[in-house]
């Protein structure tokens, strides 16, 4: 962001400012081990670009859970019978997601979004391989649409621990060129991880760019394989966030800037999408001694 800039008078920037809206659960259904939740959230879908996320209040008005839960947007529908909706995929990890996985249609939900930096798209038609782990694949489907709109070939590689934790296999098969699937337990597709399968898929599809979303160890491994083929790779990271809007400083990870300096960057506003080779994967969870402002 330009220092001292103001979005006032800049229609594009204004349109991209996040909004806070009182939404409502429109529908919820089970998809494998996950819950797909559709929320009316006027204004958010209109601003959304693939890779961005929303931050939700959980637990209702008397909740003792104060912090927002952030979810990658699976699908955003700007215009429709319900004035704009977003869909998210919820996996249960704790009390907040447990509550969300049980919401009923009509439940009010306070939604902030769209948040974060989106995926950057190739300037010219490019073969893109989209790699998803578990429900981390959710944001890849709106990305695929945006890529196809730019005449990019889109192929998928989806992986998970087991078949019920795969997300979007059928949709990928309906819409994409090649779709490869793998599971850790071999319950469907090739046994092993997406990183194991990635060399074959890069060679088979001839992809020139890789996009990945899923757990941090997977992102690290996928990016390393992409790099070994000399392919650019963007990843959407998962870090624990309290606010999602850039004020709490909890979701940081060491990222090398354009100037070569490592900073503890916020995954909510500087990410969640990063170039894989900018993230110092060995040092995630630490403050590297050469990071700007590290205590020497």
């Amino acid at each position, binding site marked *: 962001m330009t220092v*001292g800039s*103001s979005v006032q008078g800049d229609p594009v920037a204004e349109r991209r400012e996040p909004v806070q809206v009182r939404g409502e659960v429109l529908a919820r259904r089970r998809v494998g081990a996950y819950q797909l939740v559709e929320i009316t959230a006027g204004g958010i879908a209109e601003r959304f670009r693939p890779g961005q996320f929303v931050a939700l209040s959980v637990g209702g008005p008397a909740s003792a859970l104060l912090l927002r839960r952030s979810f990658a947007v699976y699908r955003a529908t700007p215009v429709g019978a319900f004035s704009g909706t977003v869909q998210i995929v919820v996996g249960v990890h704790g009390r907040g997601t447990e509550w969300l996985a049980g919401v009923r249609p009509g439940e009010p939900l306070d939604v902030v979004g769209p948040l974060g930096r989106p995926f950057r798209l190739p300037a010219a038609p490019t073969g893109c391989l989209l790699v998803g782990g578990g429900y981390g694949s959710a944001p890849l489907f709106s990305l695929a649409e945006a890529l196809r709109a730019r005449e990019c070939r889109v192929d998928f590689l989806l992986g998970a621990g087991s078949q019920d934790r795969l997300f979007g296999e059928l949709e990928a098969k309906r819409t994409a060129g090649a779709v490869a699937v793998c599971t850790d337990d071999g319950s469907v597709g090739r046994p092993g991880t997406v990183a194991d399968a990635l060399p074959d898929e890069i060679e088979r599809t001839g992809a020139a760019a890789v996009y990945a979303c899923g757990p941090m160890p997977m992102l690290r491994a996928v990016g390393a394989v992409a790099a070994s083929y000399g392919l650019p790779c963007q990843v959407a990271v998962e870090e624990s966030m309290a606010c999602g809007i850039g004020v709490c400083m909890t979701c940081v990870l060491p990222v090398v800037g354009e100037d070569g300096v490592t900073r503890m960057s916020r995954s909510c506003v500087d990410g969640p999408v990063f170039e894989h080779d900018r993230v110092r994967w060995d040092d995630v969870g630490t403050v590297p001694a050469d990071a700007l402002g590290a205590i020497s």
Partner: protein
Amino acid sequence: MTLATHPVKMTTDLAGAVLPNPVLTASGCAAAGRELQPFAPVSTLGAVVTKSVTLRPRAGRPTPRMAETPSGMLNSIGLQNPGVDAFLAHDLPWLAEHDARAVVSIAGGSVAEYAELARRIAPAPALVAVEVNISCPNVESRGEVFACDPLAASRVLAAVRAEIPAVVPVLAKLSPDVTDIVAVARACADAGADGLTLVNTMLGLVIDPDTMRPVLGGVTGGLSGPAIMPVALRCVWQVHAALPSVPILGVGGIRTGLDALQFVLAGASAISVGTAVFGDPSAPVRVLAELETALGERGFAAVADAIGYAHRDAGVELVVPPPPAPAGDPARLSAAAGARPSWRLGEEDVW
């Protein structure tokens, strides 16, 4: 409540800083204001209390830096900030351009560092007050927490006060993790602090039952949120009772207008909304509206009249609150209003 109430004068004087309203952000919970702008325009806030700035950039502590706790959270950010040069070059000018008032929080490792920081920020635009963070629990050594020692605290405050123009108030931000907060408060006031920010987070710990190790990378962290509000409120109460002429910026777990009202009644001239912003980025604006309504409903013409009102002697009622009545029961409301002449009715009120 749908009670229409008299407009309340919300201007407040925080130790000499005249603010359009008493609702501020809290240091470390709003960065330098810019990220809140889409949700809570900075010009509408009493002031933006910026995240503590240090002389040099600070990378902070390793992750995980946050653990959610019942009605609260633990953080160990470790004062991550870009350093005073970047802060003065980027953050304060932005606040000035957007018609915000800035309460600049400074944090140092020595008296000399605090003094140097004060010198650097003294001429800055938008500066309406300085908050001296002598109570961050997330420093490498708990021994550096000046607010745990009245003498150390007073040295820092005297050094900062000497560097800041007299028209700009200096606030000392104190820790609740002390045996006698009044003693620390008195030492700061005697050393020249114009006011006090009460309180910083309390030191806490969460252990992950699966890994059986502390959750936070920094092991311990600062507890904030509604969980600490009664503690914060008690500190405001005790200090206001002992030092009624020392203005207080109240902070700790405020998430509604009625929470803010409690701090004002306990003796705060203004309040900061902190952790609530993480869950609701527009919380400061909402708290302000709710506080104004709450004051009006209780018959206060100005927020200034409510400061410390909970300390009044038994039997003394400067304003008489109306009895609780269900909304939409006009007969009961008008009867109550008629029986209590000190309950001010707005001209536009129609029961």
